[in-house]
């Protein structure tokens, strides 16, 4: 089992990166990227969100789009870096959703069939209470390749 590091591409995204590098067909060609919050560490080969433990939508949680705040990068450097440009905020929660420890960039706004793309270990775990919102800083989520 490959140990996970923050900002690591998941197996699905590694395959897409190689397909792009060699000009192979990408399907889908584009998608909107959403950031999910997890309560347990993922494994690098986890293909979809069916294998992860995510905050429950019964708490008013919903995945937030990376795209609405935009991306910074990918940078013209080696290694190349991409990160979120805007602040990402969840909630307000209608009940306590538990403690999140990881984030996961995925390719669908909801559902367990979403493909896992990039995993992020949160610098600090967070346990929001009822009525709270949860904010992640701009540039808080970076991935390097």
């Amino acid at each position, binding site marked *: 089992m490959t140990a996970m590091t923050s900002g690591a591409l998941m197996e699905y995204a590694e395959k897409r990166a190689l397909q792009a590098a060699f000009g192979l067909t990408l399907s889908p060609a584009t998608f909107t990227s959403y950031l999910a919050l997890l309560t347990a560490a993922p494994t690098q080969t986890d293909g979809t969100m069916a294998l992860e433990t995510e905050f429950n939508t019964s708490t008013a949680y919903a995945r937030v789009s990376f795209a609405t705040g935009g991306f910074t990068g990918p940078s013209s450097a080696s290694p190349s870096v991409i990160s979120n440009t805007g602040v990402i*905020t969840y909630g307000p929660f209608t009940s306590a959703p538990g403690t999140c420890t990881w984030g996961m960039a995925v390719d669908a706004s909801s*559902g367990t069939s979403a493909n896992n793309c990039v995993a992020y270990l949160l610098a600090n775990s967070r346990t929001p209470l*009822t*009525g709270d919102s949860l904010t992640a800083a701009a540039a808080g989520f970076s991935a390097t390749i």
Partner: protein
Amino acid sequence: MPATHRYSHPEGKGFGQHHAEASQRELPAEMRDLDMADGTEVEHADTDEDSGRPIVAWADASGNPRRTSIDPEFFREHFEPMAQDAPEGA
């Protein structure tokens, strides 16, 4: 964001404030700043694939884009549909 609904609370409470008070909790000031205030215009942007709950897109007081899933009954009771402009000649 094409607004489709407006959050409306009979006592003017924010969405988070309403639920916090129902849990006997006073919402801290910094959380009130991030709350969905009474009168916030939202877009019914999505439906959660697993639970069927409506997901609304909205902007908080700082202008940051937000997405929140709503209990269907609470949505019916507290989110008023907004009149859509009729097309010309209709």
